[in-house]
């Protein structure tokens, strides 16, 4: 392992033979743990120990026949030649060089070369250590260092990194840290880490964090920090305490990620959820969310109010909702829920009678809740109290009906004014005129005066009738009471007893089904009176009047029937005029001015009833009065 310009000179084994010192040193070098060789500039390799043979595979014989640099790696040959120049005579040199072993392996060898005199010759003592393993370790270390450095770069680029000493004094920040905190590196180094505290977190939170890292544990969490300009930002942080060989923390490294956007989104979501919840709970509409089996999933405050008031349901999640509806309504609600589950939007109004006699009205809407794939997840039942609106509607309907009735009344009034009021006036004008011109005789004069008086009284009657009708139409001030049908009839029989006797009237009453109703006494009397006297007035000539009166209980309330055997009315012709004011269907032979039935109808309607008529000429007439209980 030496080099010499004239290295081609061989070295003979014979030169060394016969020297006992030589032999003992041979044995010595063979037990050295390192490779050892002696190279003579003149005679080439003189010694080559077993270790070298073991490591490189070459024997002394092999290397003697080889050129001195032949087994070095081409890349190292020049360097080795240099090192083994003359300077080696004075100073020992150390260098590493790669030797190509006999089997072709590349073996890095650490060389220690020193010039010696061996057997009187100027030689080089070369000690070599196989450093393959060291080299491998070094390479692995280099790789690890490179990797670590790559990690650091990656971390620097991706994260916000800072390091502090055990007391929390910043001694390193990366660019991201400066960027997000808006402090320069100079402003941060040497400062307490608390410089970026936002004050957002509780004392407990901060203490817990310090406790964790102080005990040598890694802490993870979201922290709100404050930048130099006062604006806060959120970072997802990992703080790693670094522990030295003595088990003491020597620095803290914190690695953070900016999550301000995520935090803002979270806040927005929380806010909007809170807002929705607020709307849900403060809505005056009751909402109940049901699953596909109609079990309650959730409901708002209004829903629990409605449930308690109208369904007597305490409102528990998991209850089967239809169970809480009235037996009559259970199937209806189940059907509606099924329909909604099938995708329909259901909509109906429902009334709930209250103990105080009023009625609450609700608008019920049921609709399906579906996911993005249109799969029905449940149904929402929304119930809004529309009592006020409904009452207003009913009032408006009543008002409209009233207006229509008023208009009809006005039409009728116009007719009355044109005919019934105008007729006696025309007569008065006519007879007064005749009186002015001068009657021919005293008899004539007396007749005119008589006619004048009659017409005037007729006029007065019409005006009184009109006044009476207007009275009826006004709001009824009389209060309702229980009125007996039989008593009412008795009173009338007494008051018209003369007429009954004179005409031979028979009245058959049957009030066994029901004999009283809660109504206005004077109206019921008037209705009975008018219908009875009407039957007597319009009796058939020579047929004694027979009047049958009966009461009946119906689903809706009470029905009264008045039946006679009188002249009857041709309803095909006059049906629409039966209850008209001043409508008469019979001739002068019968007293009447067409007021009775008009008044009766008005009164029946005023006390909440309905009157209808059946009649056949020369057979009789039947009036049916229906009162809703």
């Amino acid at each position, binding site marked *: 392992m030496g080099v010499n310009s004239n290295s081609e000179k061989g070295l003979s084994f014979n030169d060394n033979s016969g020297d006992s010192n030589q032999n003992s040193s041979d044995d010595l070098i063979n037990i050295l743990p390192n490779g050892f060789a002696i190279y003579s500039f003149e005679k080439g390799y003189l010694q080559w120990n077993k270790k070298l043979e073991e490591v490189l595979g070459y024997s002394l014989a092999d290397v003697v026949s080889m050129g001195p640099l032949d087994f070095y790696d081409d890349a190292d040959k020049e360097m080795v030649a240099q090192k083994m120049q003359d300077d080696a005579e004075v100073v020992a040199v150390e260098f590493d060089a790669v030797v190509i072993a006999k089997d072709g392996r590349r073996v890095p060898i650490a060389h220690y070369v020193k010039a010696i005199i061996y057997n009187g010759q100027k030689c080089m003592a070369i000690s070599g250590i196989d450093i393959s393993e060291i080299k491998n370790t070094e390479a692995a270390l280099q790789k690890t260092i490179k990797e670590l450095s790559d990690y650091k770069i990656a971390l620097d680029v991706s994260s916000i990194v800072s390091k502090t000493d055990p007391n929390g004094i910043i001694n390193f920040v990366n660019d991201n840290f400066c960027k997000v905190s808006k402090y320069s590196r100079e402003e941060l180094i040497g400062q307490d880490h608390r410089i970026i505290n936002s004050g957002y977190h509780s004392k407990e939170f901060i203490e817990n964090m310090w406790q964790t890292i102080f005990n040598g544990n890694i802490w993870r969490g979201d922290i709100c920090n404050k930048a130099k300009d006062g604006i806060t930002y959120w970072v997802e942080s990992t703080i790693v305490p670094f522990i030295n060989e003595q088990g003491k923390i020597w620095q803290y490294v914190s690695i953070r990620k900016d999550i301000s956007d995520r935090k803002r989104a979270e806040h927005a979501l929380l806010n909007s959820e809170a807002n929705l919840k607020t709307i849900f709970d403060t809505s005056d509409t009751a909402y109940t969310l049901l699953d596909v089996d109609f079990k309650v999933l959730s409901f708002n405050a209004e829903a629990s109010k409605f449930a308690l008031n109208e369904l007597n349901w305490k409102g528990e999640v998991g209850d089967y909702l239809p169970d809480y509806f009235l037996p009559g309504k259970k199937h209806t609600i189940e059907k509606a829920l099924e329909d909604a589950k099938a995708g329909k939007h259901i909509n109906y109004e429902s009334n709930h009678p209250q103990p105080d006699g009023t009625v609450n009205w609700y608008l019920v809407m049921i609709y399906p809740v579906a996911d993005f794939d249109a799969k029905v997840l449940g149904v929402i039942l929304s119930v809004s109290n529309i009592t006020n609106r409904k009452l207003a509607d009913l009032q408006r309907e009543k008002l409209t009906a009233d207006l229509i009735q008023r208009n009809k009344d006005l039409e009728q009034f116009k007719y009355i004014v044109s005919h019934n009021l105008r*007729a006696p006036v025309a007569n008065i004008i006519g007879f007064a005129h005749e009186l002015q011109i001068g009657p021919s005789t005293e008899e004539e004069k007396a007749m005119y005066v008589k006619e004048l008086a009659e017409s005037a009284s007729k006029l007065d009657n019409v005006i009184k009738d009109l006044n009476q009708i207007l009275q009826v139409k006004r709001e009824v001030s009389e209060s309702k009471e229980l009125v007996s049908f039989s008593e009412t009839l008795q009173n009338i029989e007494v008051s018209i007893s003369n007429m009954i006797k004179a005409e031979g009237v028979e009245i058959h009453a049957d009030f066994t089904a029901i004999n009283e109703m809660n109504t206005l006494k004077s109206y019921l009397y008037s209705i009975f009176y008018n219908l009875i006297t009407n039957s007597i007035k319009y009796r058939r000539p020579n047929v004694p009047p027979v009047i049958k009166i009966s009461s009946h209980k119906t689903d809706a309330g009470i029905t009264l029937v008045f039946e006679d055997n009188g002249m009857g009315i041709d309803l095909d012709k006059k049906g629409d005029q039966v209850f008209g004011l001043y409508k008469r269907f019979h001739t002068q032979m019968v007293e009447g001015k067409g007021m009775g039935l008009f008044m009766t109808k008005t009164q029946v309607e005023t006390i909440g009833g309905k009157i209808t008529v059946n009649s056949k000429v020369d057979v009789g007439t039947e009036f049916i009065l229906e009162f809703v209980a």
Partner: protein
Amino acid sequence: MKIPQRFLLIDDDPSNNLLTKISIKKTIEGVDVVDYTMPENGIQFIVDEYAENPVQTVLFLDINMPTLSGWDVLDKFAEMPELIEPNFTIYVLSSSVDPGDKEKAANNKLVSGYLEKPLSRDKLKSMFQLV
């Protein structure tokens, strides 16, 4: 207008019939005046009388009557034109001051005119140019 041989009054109000009859008799002496308070009877009179003894007649017809209204009577007349058209001049004599009634009368071809009650002598005179 030529004075007819007969006046026929159909009105359920006997007072008005009396008044009209007096006016006619005092205006046109000796003329025949027949009055009916039941329109059915008036129609029967026409049917009975005019087939055999038709005379020129002025009819004063009321509208507002209980069993048959004036319009109903005119409807019946339309069914017997052979008796009505050659013999009758028909006036509606009504207390009504309703323009609707006047219009209805004007639209009925059997009706020659609409007179408002009372029917005074002056009105009759001017109708028959008796001034």
